[in-house]
Structures are given as structure tokens and as C-alpha cells.
């Protein structure tokens, strides 16, 4: 219920929301969890396996039960943690994993069969006839929320920051560190996951340096950069951290998150600690809560979760809750497991050496049986709230992720960090405010390199009483829960130990303890303590499971950040991109570039467009945008010698103004790239790697130069983006070039095939190359890329009377296939050697140890039955075989592949189907008819030389 006064809520701002369809009210300052408690909702969920009713246990990231479905303003979170979501007006909140709802779930009947469904039961059965018979039902029962139809279209930002010091946690220790370090002049970022700074200061009244704790917290905030509502979820290499900042008040609405990647020279873990449950029979009933959480709800949102309260504890901290509850008007009884009770205020009833032995109540807690640990006596006491404290586990997750080591402290019954001055506050086991402030202060000063600021002052507290570790109450009685969400009991831990799953990692995987959405925050230590007892080992020897990011679940969309839609891997665009679109280009992704496949006229299919463009280019004139082709300038006195060590072909004897088609190999001999090498001058070359390999080729040249030949005088420059390149190709190509108006002499004598020249085109620098990928006379015109559009349009204008049409890559692919020109990555793959392509010359004649040379001499490189590049003429001239078909020998079960078809199309000039492929011993099979296999069907083709049109190359010189 909601108290009439108190709490950090705004009673002037009532918020309407629905819970499973029922209208309810809360206030600004509520979380969904506090609003549900205020409205008397006891059952908020069902457990994963047995569908037992579950209530709210905690107030923050420790909450194991309250996973709910939330819809608000068109955004949907199917697995929201009710304790972490601030309430908003109009929120629709629903329970998950229950039918018809969590209050009256029919699947609760499964619990009747629990004795047959222990941890790991599914490993022992469901084998016959096979697991898949049972799987659909099991899958339907599993899972919490449901992925709905609402789509998250929000943008998620990522920010990067550097600082001298990252402080994780904005409670008293973290704030004291901020105050000290900030005064010392170092740059500080402090991350705290609550909307307001202060941590425990917000729920436990305190006075620091003469002011109220919360006010003191606010006053310190200015000493550094404070990120509120920000969870540090991961500690990574070299002081880098991942942070998730929730921007509740951002215009984009609830739940928008910003990912921060912070690099910190130093860190202080002031992450606090998490209260542990006690393990006793029926300890999972709704109405059983963490004592600290009760106090947080009471002081934070004026919520009283019960009127008749039992506080069960084994340490001093829960007494603050008992006193607070009594002050709020509840009737309170404390059951302290220890013989000596803790700090009792006037009027508080305490039963020493008393623990809960059982609980009862149909729709939530109604009574608790109290008595000594051995269960010799018991007394039934009515209660609607059982506030429990089994001790505190320091939140060492991030500290451990960062490589820090832990040690088990018997006296405090806790894993403590070996952190020196990188840890401060209750993470070190400190229980009182004064110590936390002092530790934070010291850590902050140390991080700042010293200073004389005095520590913040607060009233000293009496030394706390010892904790009495109680890992399990009355082991043989009833069902005692360790992991509340995944339904793991103390008996399951015993079963795991009995069956030999004795490592703490085996325990986790076998029982699924700690693998629920709360990641074991309240179950890990209890579980491993039980395992220790069951296997006769100490807790230190058992140890903890490995801590890994994320500390709490992180939205996937926030991790992806701005890499969404087009920004997942941005495509590069040609300089004349818009002109291509205007011409109807079918733009596709080719090696990371958006390039035209062809230019479809209205109503024309892609196939028809390709046929039209190809025929036109062969008979008249075509225009192609080759701007994405790589251009790498190589300069230096040793340029020729260096490139000769890189390329398969001889390039040192290339004359200035001449071009040569060359292959680049890997050290394994495999063909990495092909392209035309142009020599511009004695000490200057221009390489043209394929579009998708330019970066790789440049990297290869740089690597070899810097690591193997560092004394050679040579420099490289990628000028791909600086030049636009257009190819004019066809019988009328020279006619167009003669009208172009450049200063370059384009006569056959001055610019023969495989030559190049530099000049100007209407005042623009230009390079002309006679090089052909179509097999027809072809000129490549390169101009500065900022003039791409102007020159493209100029060429189209000049070419119109000559019947010029633009053609795309798919068309080029057809034209080059007629000539048998290879495409790297299509006709070749990661196994192709130059000899497979019929290019053996350089291996025989070239003397230098070029890259890959020795690999061409191995047994595998020299065997006779390697796959070789050949042409194929299908028996049916109208049938274009599928690329990827295999040539086969043998029949049915004994079939063997001899190779495959790498390219296939209708030949525009021959008006019949042609194909290229890599076939075992192909060159010796010329004239043979072979079987072609595709998806079970067989056709036939004859092997021929890989050139179908103009084998002598006369069309190149037209």
C-alpha cells in the first residue's frame, strides 16, 4: 500500500497505467515495481520451469522475478525488469509466460509433478523415439516475453570519451571519491544507474558535513562529469569500459539508450553490494522480499509492502528495515538467526536464535513458521511480508571482469576484491557510512595523485555485529529455493554434486543456476556455498563462476548503435551516381560499390536490357562507367624492380606509355587479383586493381615494401577516388574519340591497343588508355572525379549520333565472357593458380623471386589433373546452363565432380549459349562432350577453348 506522505515521488503527478489490463495509478518517481506494490499486486510473474507464483524480491538489478512486458508510445520491451523501468503515463504492463495471466496460470499445475522434474531431468529422458518429438512443447513452455509486431525504429547513439578516472557507482563512496579527485584536478567521469545520485543516501537518512545526505550528494556532483541512469556493463582491455545510458526524458521517448565507450586511465569500483536471500523451505512465496529493498521502497516511493511484518536476518543490516517499518506503522517481529540480537530500538520485538522454517498462504504470504535452525520447535506467526537478509555479496562483477582477483572472507562471509585503492565502499565489505566515505575519499585522492582535502565527516557508527552464515536451514525439510527465476533448489545442488558435477561451472550449466535474466545476482553465492557443503570443500576452494560482460542485460539495438539500415556497412557511390539513376540504372552492390548492372528502359526486363546493351556495344558504341576500378600510383627509383617482385608477370621491361595485363599472387601461389599495369615513366607506374581488391592490393604493396624490401625507393598512393574513368567501346569508338577534343593523339599509330597517353580534355587533365574488357576497340578516359558528371554527359551527347548507349556490369560480364576474359572471384577462387588459367609463361621465364613463385613448384601445383580454365558449348544452344553447375563423371551414387561452370550467358554475336568453367584436365579435353549436373538434372556440353568470338583479337584494333 501507499503511505500518505513521504517518499521521493511527486503526488501532484498521478500516472495512469494498466497491469494485465486492469487500470491502476502511480506517481512520477515510481518504478513499475513500486507502483505494482503500491497497488497491492503480489504476483507479478511465474517461475520458468514450475510456473510457481512469483512476487517482487528486490528494488534494482538484483530482482530475479519481476520480468514483465511493457508497451508505451509504440515501443515494446518483452522482457523488462519492473524494478528498473520508471513508470510513465499510459504504460501497458503485462505478465509473461503464463496463461491466462500470472495470477491464475493454468501451467501452475506442472508444479504438481516437480519431483519428476529435477534439474537436468531432460538429459535423462526424451531419447525415444527422438528429442524432436517432444521439443515443440518444451520450446512453447520456455521463454519469458514474446517478440511482438511493434518495431523499434529509434536511433541509438554511441559516444566515446576519455578520462583520467572513471568512478563506477554514485553512492557515498563513489561520491567521496569524486569530491576528492575532482578537487585534485583530474578529469573524472562518474556513472550511476539511478535517476538521482546518492545510492543508499537516498533511502537511509544521514548527515554528511552538516547537510542531509541527498543534498550533499547533489552538491558533490559538480566535481566531474556525472552520467546518471548509466550502467557500466563491461570492463574490457586497457581500461576501456562499456556504459549504457538510459535517456528517459529524451524526445525520442522512454528507453532510448546511448552507448558510451570510455577509456579511463584509472578506475574506482564503488559498485556496492547486493543483499543475499536466506535459503529455507518455501522461501519463494510472493511477499518475501529483500530487507534492503523493503527500505528502498519505503523511503523511495512511500510504499509499505506489508502491515504484519517478520524480518528474518543473520546480520545487523536488516534492523534498519525493522525500525523503518515500525515507524511507518507496521507491526514488526525480528527473527535473528544469531544468539545475540542486533541493534534493537525501543519497542522492537526480537526472537534470537530463530529462523523461518516454513511459509504458507494461497495467493501470497499469509504465515511463517519460526523456530531454531534444527526445527525442534516451531511457532506459526501470521505475516503478509517477510523481509529477509542473508548477508551481503559485494558487487565484484566489473572488478573481476577487469581482471581483479577475489578472496573469500570467512568473517564477513563474502568474496572480497583484492583491489587496493581501486575499490571503495561496501564492495570492500565495509558496512557503515563513515568507512565508505573514508575509503572513497582515499581512493579519490590516490587517483588524483595526492591532495590535502579532508574527508567528508559523518557521525561514527558503532561496530557492526558479526554475521552468522546460514547457508541452508534445516536441509531435509521442504523445497528450498536458490535461483528463483530458473527454479533451482538446494536439492538440485545436492543432486548435481551427487552426480559428479562438482566444479562450480558444471553446477551452473547442469542446474542452470545463475543463468536466468538476473544472472545469478542473488543466487550465485548461496549456490556455491551449498555446493561446498555437498562436496566437503570450503567455499574458497569452490570459487565463483567467471564474471563476464554484460553486468546487466543490454539492449541489442544500443550495442548496434548507429550501424542501422544503410549505415551497417556504407556502400561507396560512383561520382556520376545520380546520372546513372536518372538513366534507369539497376544499381547493385558490387564489391562494396553501388554500380549499374544495366540500364533498363521502361517495361524492359533485365535480360532484355542486357541483350540490347550488349548487341549495341558490339555493333555500334557503348559507354561504361569504370570509376570504381582501382588506381594506385607507384613512384620511385626502384618502382620497376619492386613491382617486378610483386607481380607474376614481367613489368620491369614495360616501356613508358605501354600497358600489360598482369596477375598478382599470394605467397601460396593463388591468384589474388588481376589488372592492367601501366608504365607512365621510368620511375612511375599506374596499377588498376579490381574495384573490390584495391585496398587489399595497396595493403599488400605496403606490407611487402615495409617488411621485406624496406631499402627500396618506392612510394604508393591510392588515387582511385581522385579520377573518374569512362570506357567507350565498339566499332565506332575511334570515331567518337576523334570528336572528343582532347589534346591526345588518338590515331592507331599514336595510341595502339595497350598504350596510354596523358593530355588535357577541354582544359582538364586527362589520361587516355587503349585497353579493352569487351574485346572491341576500347578507350578509357580518366578525368578528375569532380568533373565526372560533366564528362559523362559530354560523352553521351557526342555519342548519341553514333548510336551510343550506356552499358552496365552485367552487360560487360557477357561481352567479356564471349572473349574468355576472366573475372577474379567468379572464374577464379581461393585455389586458382596461374597455370590453371593457361598463363605459364612467367613461371618459366621470370627470374626474380616474385610473391608466390615457390608455391607454384609444389607437387600439388604441378600435378596434371588440376582444374583448368576452358570454354563450353552446350548441346542445346538455347539453354544457358546455371553458373555453379558441375561437370561430372560416373553415375548416380558413384558420381564425381570434375569441376564447375563459372560463367554462362547467351552470346550476343553468336546468338547461342556459351559457358566458361574450371574442369579437371580441361585443356586436354577439348572436343569432348561432358555431362553437366545441376540440382539433379543432367545436360550436355562440348569443351572448347575459352574464347568464342574473334580469337585472333582483330576487333581490338578496329
Amino acid at each position, binding site marked *: 500500500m501507499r503511505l500518505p506522505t513521504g517518499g521521493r515521488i511527486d503526488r501532484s503527478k498521478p500516472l495512469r497505467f494498466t497491469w494485465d489490463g486492469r487500470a491502476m495509478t502511480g506517481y512520477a518517481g515510481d518504478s513499475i515495481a513500486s507502483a505494482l506494490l503500491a497497488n497491492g499486486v503480489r504476483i507479478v510473474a511465474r517461475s520458468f520451469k514450475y510456473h510457481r507464483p512469483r512476487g517482487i524480491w528486490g528494488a534494482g538489478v538484483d530482482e530475479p522475478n519481476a520480468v514483465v512486458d511493457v508497451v508505451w508510445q509504440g515501443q515494446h520491451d518483452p522482457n523488462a525488469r519492473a524494478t528498473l523501468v520508471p513508470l510513465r503515463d499510459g504504460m501497458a504492463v503485462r505478465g509473461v509466460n503464463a496463461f491466462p495471466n500470472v495470477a491464475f496460470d493454468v501451467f501452475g499445475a506442472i508444479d504438481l509433478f516437480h519431483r519428476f522434474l529435477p534439474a537436468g531431468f531432460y538429459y535423462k529422458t526424451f531419447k525415444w523415439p527422438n528429442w524432436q518429438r517432444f521439443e515443440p512443447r518444451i520450446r512453447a513452455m520456455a521463454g519469458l516475453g514474446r517478440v511482438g509486431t511493434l518495431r523499434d525504429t529509434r536511433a541509438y547513439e554511441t559516444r566515446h570519451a576519455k578520462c583520467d578516472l572513471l568512478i563506477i557507482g554514485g553512492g557515498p563512496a563513489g561520491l567521496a571519491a569524486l569530491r576528492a579527485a575532482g578537487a585534485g584536478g583530474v578529469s573524472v567521469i562518474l556513472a550511476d544507474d539511478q535517476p538521482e545520485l546518492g545510492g543508499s543516501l537516498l533511502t537511509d537518512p544521514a548527515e554528511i558535513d552538516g547537510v542531509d545526505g541527498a543534498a550533499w550528494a547533489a552538491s558533490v556532483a559538480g566535481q566531474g562529469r556525472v552520467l546518471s541512469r548509466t550502467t557500466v556493463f563491461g570492463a574490457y582491455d586497457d581500461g576501456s569500459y562499456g556504459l549504457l545510458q538510459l535517456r528517459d526524458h529524451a524526445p525520442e521517448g522512454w528507453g532510448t539508450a546511448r552507448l558510451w565507450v570510455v577509456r579511463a586511465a584509472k578506475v574506482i569500483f564503488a559498485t556496492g553490494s547486493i543483499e543475499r536471500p536466506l535459503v529455507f523451505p518455501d522461501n519463494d512465496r510472493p511477499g518475501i522480499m529483500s530487507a534492503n529493498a523493503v527500505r528502498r521502497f519505503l523511503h523511495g516511493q512511500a510504499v509499505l509492502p506489508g502491515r504484519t511484518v517478520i524480518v528474518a536476518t543473520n546480520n545487523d543490516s536488516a534492523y534498519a528495515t525493522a525500525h523503518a517499518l515500525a515507524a511507518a506503522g507496521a507491526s514488526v517481529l525480528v527473527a535473528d538467526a544469531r544468539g545475540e540480537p542486533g541493534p534493537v530500538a525501543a519497542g522492537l520485538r526480537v526472537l534470537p536464535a530463530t529462523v523461518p522454517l516454513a511459509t504458507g498462504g494461497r495467493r501470497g504470504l499469509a504465515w511463517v513458521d519460526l523456530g531454531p535452525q534444527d526445527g525442534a520447535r516451531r511457532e506459526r506467526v501470521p505475516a503478509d511480508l517477510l523481509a529477509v537478509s542473508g548477508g551481503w555479496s559485494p558487487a565484484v562483477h566489473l572488478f573481476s571482469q577487469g581482471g581483479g582477483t577475489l578472496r573469500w572472507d570467512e568473517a564477513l562471509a563474502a568474496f572480497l576484491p583484492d583491489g587496493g585503492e581501486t575499490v571503495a565502499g561496501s564492495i570492500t565489505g565495509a558496512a557503515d557510512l563513515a568507512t565508505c566515505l573514508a575509503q572513497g575519499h582515499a581512493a579519490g585522492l590516490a587517483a588524483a595523485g595526492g591532495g590535502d582535502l579532508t574527508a567528508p565527516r559523518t557521525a561514527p557508527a558503532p561496530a557492526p555485529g558479526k554475521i552468522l552464515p546460514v547457508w541452508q536451514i534445516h536441509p531435509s525439510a521442504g523445497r528450498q529455493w536458490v535461483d528463483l527465476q530458473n527454479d533451482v533448489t538446494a536439492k538440485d545442488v545436492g543432486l548435481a554434486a551427487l552426480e559428479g558435477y562438482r566444479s562450480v561451472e558444471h553446477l551452473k550449466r547442469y542446474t542452470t543456476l545463475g543463468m536466468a535474466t538476473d544472472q545469478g545476482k542473488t543466487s550465485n553465492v548461496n549456490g556455491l556455498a551449498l555446493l561446498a557443503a555437498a562436496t566437503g570443500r570450503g567455499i574458497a576452494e569452490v570459487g565463483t563462476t567467471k564474471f563476464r560482460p554484460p553486468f546487466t542485460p543490454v539492449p541489442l539495438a544500443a550495442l548496434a548503435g548507429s550501424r542501422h539500415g544503410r549505415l551497417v556497412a556504407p556502400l561507396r557511390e560512383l561520382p556520376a551516381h545520380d546520372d546513372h539513376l536518372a538513366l534507369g540504372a539497376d544499381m547493385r552492390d558490387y564489391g562494396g560499390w553501388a554500380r549499374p548492372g544495366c540500364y533498363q528502359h521502361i517495361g524492359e526486363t533485365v535480360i532484355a536490357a542486357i541483350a540490347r546493351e550488349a548487341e549495341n556495344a558490339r555493333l555500334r558504341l557503348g559507354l561504361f562507367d569504370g570509376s570504381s576500378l582501382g588506381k594506385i600510383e607507384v613512384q620511385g627509383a626502384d618502382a620497376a624492380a619492386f613491382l617486378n617482385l610483386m607481380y607474376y608477370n614481367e613489368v620491369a621491361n614495360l616501356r613508358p606509355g605501354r600497358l600489360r595485363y598482369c596477375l598478382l599472387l599470394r605467397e601460396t601461389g593463388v591468384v589474388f587479383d588481376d589488372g592492367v599495369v601501366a608504365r607512365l615513366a621510368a620511375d612511375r607506374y599506374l596499377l588498376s586493381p579490381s574495384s573490390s581488391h584495391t585496398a587489399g592490393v595497396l595493403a599488400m604493396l605496403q606490407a611487402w615494401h*615495409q617488411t621485406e624490401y624496406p631499402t627500396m625507393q618506392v612510394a604508393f598512393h591510392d588515387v582511385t577516388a581522385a579520377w573518374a574513368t569512362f570506357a567507350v567501346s565498339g566499332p565506332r569508338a575511334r570515331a567518337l574519340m576523334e570528336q572528343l577534343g582532347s589534346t591526345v593523339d588518338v590515331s592507331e599509330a599514336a595510341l595502339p591497343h595497350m598504350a596510354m597517353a596523358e593530355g588535357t580534355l577541354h582544359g582538364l587533365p586527362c589520361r587516355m588508355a587503349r585497353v579493352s574488357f569487351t574485346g572491341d576497340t576500347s578507350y578509357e578516359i580518366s578525368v578528375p572525379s569532380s568533373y565526372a558528371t560533366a564528362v559523362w554527359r559530354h560523352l553521351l551527347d557526342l555519342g548519341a549520333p553514333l548510336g551510343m548507349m550506356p552499358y552496365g556490369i552485367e552487360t560487360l560480364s557477357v561481352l567479356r565472357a564471349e572473349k574468355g576474359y576472366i573475372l577474379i572471384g567468379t572464374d577464379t577462387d581461393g585455389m586458382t593458380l596461374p597455370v590453371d588459367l593457361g598463363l605459364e609463361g612467367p613461371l618459366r621465364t621470370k627470374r626474380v*623471386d616474385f610473391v608466390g613463385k615457390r608455391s607454384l613448384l609444389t607437387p600439388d601445383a604441378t600435378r596434371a589433373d588440376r582444374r583448368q580454365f576452358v570454354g563450353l558449348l552446350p548441346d542445346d544452344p538455347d539453354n544457358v546452363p546455371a553458373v555453379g553447375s558441375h561437370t561430372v563423371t560416373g553415375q548416380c551414387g558413384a558420381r564425381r565432380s570434375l569441376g564447375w561452370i563459372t560463367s554462362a550467358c547467351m552470346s550476343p554475336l553468336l546468338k547461342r549459349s556459351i559457358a566458361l568453367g574450371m574442369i579437371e584436365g580441361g585443356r586436354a579435353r577439348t572436343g569432348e562432350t561432358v555431362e553437366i549436373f545441376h540440382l539433379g538434372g543432367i545436360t550436355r556440353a562440348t569443351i572448347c577453348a575459352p574464347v568464342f568470338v574473334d580469337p585472333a583479337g582483330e576487333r581490338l584494333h578496329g
Partner: protein
Amino acid sequence: MLLLPCPHCGLRDEPEFSFGGEPAIRPVPASAVDDATWADYVYLRSNEKGPHREVWCHSGGCGQWFVLTRDTATHAVITP
């Protein structure tokens, strides 16, 4: 996220770099090397757990190739 020491640019973030393998001595001339020796050079790796000599390139920066020693178990750079 690693912080790596480029000899030119100083400490820079991991996404700016590419790993270039283990340094190796290239056996030349090709004619003098038997298949096993050549295969060792091309394919074998020391792959140490612990201090490991590595070639890196500041590909997203100055393009410098350099060698460093890095602990593959802790990721810490030992010597730039």
C-alpha cells in the same frame, strides 16, 4: 578494446589496426628451398600462449607496419 602503440602515432584504439601475422624470414632463392622448408615458412605458426611476436599495421591511420610483442593470454602489449 585494445590500445596499441603505433610507432608514428602513439597509442591508438584497436579498430584502427589490422593484424599481420607472425614475423617470418622468407627463404630465398625459391630454387634452393625444398617443399617442407617452404611449407614451414608459409603455413607454420608459433602461436604462443603468452608473449607473442606479432606484425601489425596501423591501417586506419598512418599505414605503418610494425612489430610488437603482446601477451596473448592477457592481451597486454609487452614491448612496442
